[in-house]
């Protein structure tokens, strides 16, 4: 068994090495992400104490099935991203390795202050990655807003510490903080703001448009999948384990999440640039996930985060590459681009359809779980919003898919002569990689129960409920 | 036309001719001025329906092609076209002196001289203009002729088609013309 601390240490060491041995940094990066995946299988479950001090005083790492899922997801997607865009990642080896350490740390840590440190590491790496868009003003924008978030978080911690005397999550959970007290509201607000900024929730996500909208195939894919899901995972942990939300606060946070979902989907609906579509879709999805986390429906939220992360990863990668080839990501200028890229196209389509929540794909299972869980909680309003905006979501994704697959004038049958070009988007190996990733979505959609079991081993996360809905329950037996 | 020919019709033809004689439907080719005489012939003063006569809308339905007055080369082409669209037995009644010998337009470059050179006229109704009485009188005569089997213009046309066609082409150049307005 391997101590989880290596998850943080190894990438950091490799990052340091990559500074020293710049010539092999590409290989260092690759080996870093590979080792990261490899040691995932041998990690020691449970709580790990670092530095000899017992919690709540020392640093501790928690590896439960929740953080395990997060680690696996982030690690795998990072690996895929690096492999897929090695030419771009090469330049950012150090940053990416640092980011990996930060991400792992965020997911593993059991202490709010440590969380702050890892979050800073991660976000700073994100600032640097965002410069790849070659639009410094947006990076600066991100920097400003991100710093506000950090300051808020820190301030929140200070107030919090003064109120409770500890920052250890387990300790805090044990204190069973009541949300009714007004004093707690201030640190809660400060901490929530910090997370909301990172999770792109309305009205805090002002940086997203510039950063996502100018991402390339590496950064876009990483932002929308690895970073976004990590933040959401941490959000889920903080707002379920540390603060047990209830009452008006819960309502407000859920409302913010739902509004983010609705508004994000609406904003995506009117876009013609693919990256914009994807970014607003990401905003929407993270809003929904946040709402579910805030409601304590962790399992559906995790499913949603996973399905969104994988789909967005594929779509952002392809979009980024398309933009490299055709210098545009306006889908009306990219009609019929999948005609000569069928594998890539199928991967993109599967991802999109999974995001919409069409059956046979994993997104459907996630959505169905969310709905069932919500209805079980006696809530019919949020499902209505989810389904209503699922129509909008379906509308813009299907519109996008149709445009990318079938070129042709209105009134004439679809014809390849109207396709924008016959350039291959990815070479055959990369196409297959993307395709296999999308097959994962399809396979997980076809055998969702197994996938669900794989994710949560049927027990739910952090003491929450397991799957609200399983396919096997259709056969009659509950 | 030769009027005094032997009556060699069989019974069915005689019955048929009886029907034909008593139910005369006309297509009026009213390019000439004579058309104005027909409304009084049709309406209550003279009431041609008494004799089973009546106007019809198209040559397909009609038995009689009534040509009222002068024919220019242009209209003659149309008249021939209409006549050929009619179903046998079909009769032509020419109306007014213009159809007999060109009337007052005898020297016009555009108006034909006599109709029976181009189409088999069964009956002429002379006059410029023939009054409705004369028209009715003429049709009485036509009815008698049909009953007796003497109105055989259509057979004559069939038998002497070459001759008629030659005359038509001599005067008209072509019957069915094709120019920018007819495409």
């Amino acid at each position: 068994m391997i101590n989880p601390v290596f998850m943080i240490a190894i990438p950091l060491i490799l990052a340091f090495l990559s500074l020293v041995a710049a010539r092999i940094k590409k290989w260092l990066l690759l080996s870093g992400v590979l080792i990261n995946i490899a040691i995932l299988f041998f990690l020691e479950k449970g709580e790990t104490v670092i530095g000899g001090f017992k919690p709540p005083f020392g640093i501790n790492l928690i590896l439960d099935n929740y953080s395990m899922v997060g680690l696996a997801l982030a690690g795998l997607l990072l690996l895929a991203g690096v492999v897929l865009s090695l030419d771009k990642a090469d330049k950012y080896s150090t940053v990416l390795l640092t980011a990996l350490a930060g991400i792992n740390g965020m997911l593993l840590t059991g202490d709010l202050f440590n969380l702050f440190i890892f979050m800073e590491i991660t976000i700073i790496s994100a600032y640097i990655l965002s410069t790849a868009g070659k639009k410094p003003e947006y990076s600066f924008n991100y920097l400003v807003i991100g710093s506000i978030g950090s300051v808020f978080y820190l301030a929140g911690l200070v107030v919090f510490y003064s109120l409770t005397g500890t920052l250890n999550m387990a300790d805090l959970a044990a204190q069973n903080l009541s949300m009714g007290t007004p004093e707690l509201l201030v640190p809660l607000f400060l901490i929530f703001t910090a997370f909301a900024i990172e999770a792109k929730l309305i009205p805090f996500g002002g940086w997203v448009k510039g950063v996502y909208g100018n991402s390339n195939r590496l950064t876009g894919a990483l932002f929308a999948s690895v970073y976004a899901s990590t933040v959401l995972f941490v959000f889920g942990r903080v707002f379920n384990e540390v603060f047990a939300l209830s009452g008006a606060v819960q309502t407000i946070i859920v409302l913010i999440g739902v509004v983010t979902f609705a508004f994000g989907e609406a904003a995506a609906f009117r876009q013609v640039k693919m990256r914009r579509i994807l970014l607003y879709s990401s905003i929407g999805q993270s809003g929904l996930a946040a709402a579910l986390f805030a409601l304590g429906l962790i399992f559906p939220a995790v499913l949603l985060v996973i399905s969104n992360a994988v789909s967005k990863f594929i779509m952002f990668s392809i979009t980024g590459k398309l933009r490299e080839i055709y210098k545009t990501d306006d889908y009306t200028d990219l009609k019929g681009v999948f005609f000569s890229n069928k594998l890539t196209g199928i991967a993109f389509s599967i991802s999109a359809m999974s995001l919409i929540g069409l059956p046979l794909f994993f997104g459907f299972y996630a959505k169905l779980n969310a709905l069932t869980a919500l209805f079980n909680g006696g809530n019919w309003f949020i499902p209505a919003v989810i389904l209503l905006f699922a129509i909008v979501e379906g509308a813009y994704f299907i519109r996008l898919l149709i445009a990318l697959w079938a070129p042709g004038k209105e009134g004439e049958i679809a014809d390849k002569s109207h396709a924008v070009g016959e350039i291959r988007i990815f070479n055959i190996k990369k196409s297959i990689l993307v395709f296999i990733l999308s097959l994962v979505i399809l396979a997980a959609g076809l055998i969702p129960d197994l996938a669900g079991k794989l994710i949560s081993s049927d027990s739910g996360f952090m003491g929450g409920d397991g799957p609200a809905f399983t396919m096997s329950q259709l056969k009659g037996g509950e | 036309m030769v009027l005094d020919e032997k009556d060699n019709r069989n019974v069915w033809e005689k019955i048929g001719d009886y029907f034909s004689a008593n139910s005369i439907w006309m297509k009026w080719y009213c390019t000439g001025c004579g058309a104005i005489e027909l409304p009084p012939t049709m309406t209550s003063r003279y009431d041609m329906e008494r004799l089973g006569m009546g106007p019809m809308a198209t040559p397909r339905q009609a038995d009689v092609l009534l040509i009222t007055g002068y024919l220019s080369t242009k209209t003659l082409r149309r008249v021939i076209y209409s006549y050929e669209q009619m179903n046998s037995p079909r009769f032509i009644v020419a109306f007014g002196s213009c159809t007999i010998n060109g009337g007052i337009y005898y020297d016009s470059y555009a108006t034909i001289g006599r109709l029976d050179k181009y189409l088999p006229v069964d009956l002429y109704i002379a006059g410029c203009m023939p009054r409705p009485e004369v028209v009715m009188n003429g049709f009485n005569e036509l009815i008698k002729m049909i009953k007796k089997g003497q109105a055989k213009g259509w057979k004559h046309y069939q038998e002497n088609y070459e001759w008629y066609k030659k005359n038509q082409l001599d005067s008209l150049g072509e019957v069915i013309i094709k120019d920018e307005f007819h495409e």
Partner: protein
Amino acid sequence: MNLTIILAVTVVLAVVSFFITRLNKKAGGFLTVIASLFAFVGLFLLKGSIGGEFSIFYFSFKITMVGWYFALIMVLAYSMTSFFNPFWMDKMMYPGSYNFMYLLSMAGTIGMFFAKDFITLFIFWETVVWSSTFIIQLGKSRKASYVYYVVSAIGSMATLFAIMMAYSVSGTFVISEAFAGLSGGAAIAVFFTFILSGLAKIGIFPFHVWLPAAHGNAPHTFSPVLSGGLVKMGAFIAFLSVTAFPAYEIFSGMFKVMGTPFPIYFLMALGAISIIVGTLMAIKQEDAKKLLAYSSVANGGYILIGILMLDQVGFAGGMMHLVNHAVASAAAFLAIAAVAYRTGTTKMSEMGGMIHRMPVTYIVYLVAIISMAGIPPMGGFVSKWLIFQGLADKGMLFLAAAAFFGSIGSFMYVFRPLSAVFLGQTFTRDLKKKEVGFFMMLPMLILTALSILAGVFPNTILRVITEIQASVGISPVTLAENTIVTVNGYLDAFRVFIVFGFGFTIAFVIFIVRRKSKKVELMDTYTSAEFIHTRELLHYSSKFYAPFERLYDKAPDTMKLYKKIAVKIGELGNLTESLFYGHKPEKTVFWVMITGIFVVIIGGVV
């Protein structure tokens, strides 16, 4: 026969056909014929195992009479249309995926009709939706496929909501039990949201917009399936909403119109509106396929009214109209497709006189429209007769008025393609065109024969419907040997047919003893003696009912409503973008401050 085998073989063949098409396009097309015919025969043999329950994977199925009936109609449309597939492969952009989606959607429909629980139903339903979306985009319009998806999504999302809501009350997804325990407002909400997908699929006003778009622009080989088959999925939902969701019982305490609870009457009124709208719009169309699409809207109205009546006569009429419309509409679309195969167009003003080139196709189309217009001796007559009898029985005056309007209006619109495409002068361009080959003719002839058989021996179909009626607990329609008996009178379709034959024979004898007529060319017609040489100009086909169309050409377009909604959503998105996602950090800071103040206030209050 086992449903598992049917489904498995279809799905496997779907995948196989995808790869075979890549090797040989025609072979892939023929494979769809084989697969769909296999499914048809398999389903036909499945009748023996009605009542059985089993599950495949996690899907659970129950073979019911009504499912069997619907599935058979559906697969009939699929299998007959599939005969056209091999000939269109060259014109498709993605022949492989076309074949794959074709068979996948067919498997989806089969699975859907036999689903035992709603989730299975929904999964298959949505599979059909997305796979057909990807087929439609290969046709003449991308927008059509988008519209199709959106309208379908409105329906299916609503239905999912209803299913979930019912589940939260009853705790089960099994169709026969899921709606137990609903009452009051929740029952109404579930009823309306549940049937929404049915309305959307049948094309009931105001969801009819997708039919002209999708039917009119889908590949010619898919329009018959859409109109003859997929529309009937909606009828299935309508059927479930009055049987599985016992609407008449749940709403029995509510305000009643002519003995029908108000929510149901409201839906029937929507059906009536779609009859009128479909008829009026069909009269206006210049494209043969769009015209037929609107006629499907109108016929969908009849089906909905019939099924929702859930009585002895009208229900039987609605259920029988399913078959008749499926057969007739598929045949009509196939005939138009056959013409388009030769001429390359479906615009009525660009064709004419195809009867002289394609007489068999003409006969097929003629029989189809006679059935669609409800004229004896074709099947459509019997079902419309039953629906009228049902309406008369209940005294539903306004619905009947709409039904009559649609019925007579259908003479107007079905006659248009007949006259414009088949009759009149053949265009110079088409003078050398030939009839389609036997392989394409075969399905059309089969459908034609079915149309006539359904009209002459309607009881064959009605016997199945009586079983369905018995299974849902209403008194079945009374059938004697050849007659259908209702309260208001009875119908002996066979005798009507014989007498018609008698009349026809007399007329024929009179005609034949008279002298043979002289055959003339079609250009030799009465033109006030004017010489016209251009065939295209003499043929009267566009703006056929201009004086009538003028009476309602200012009527609002339903599509505009959807466009307006789309614009509103876009505006919401715009607002979001400009309020929260600007490029300036100040905005975010501002919002953080606002939220902070808000929280402080809340905190103060709390």
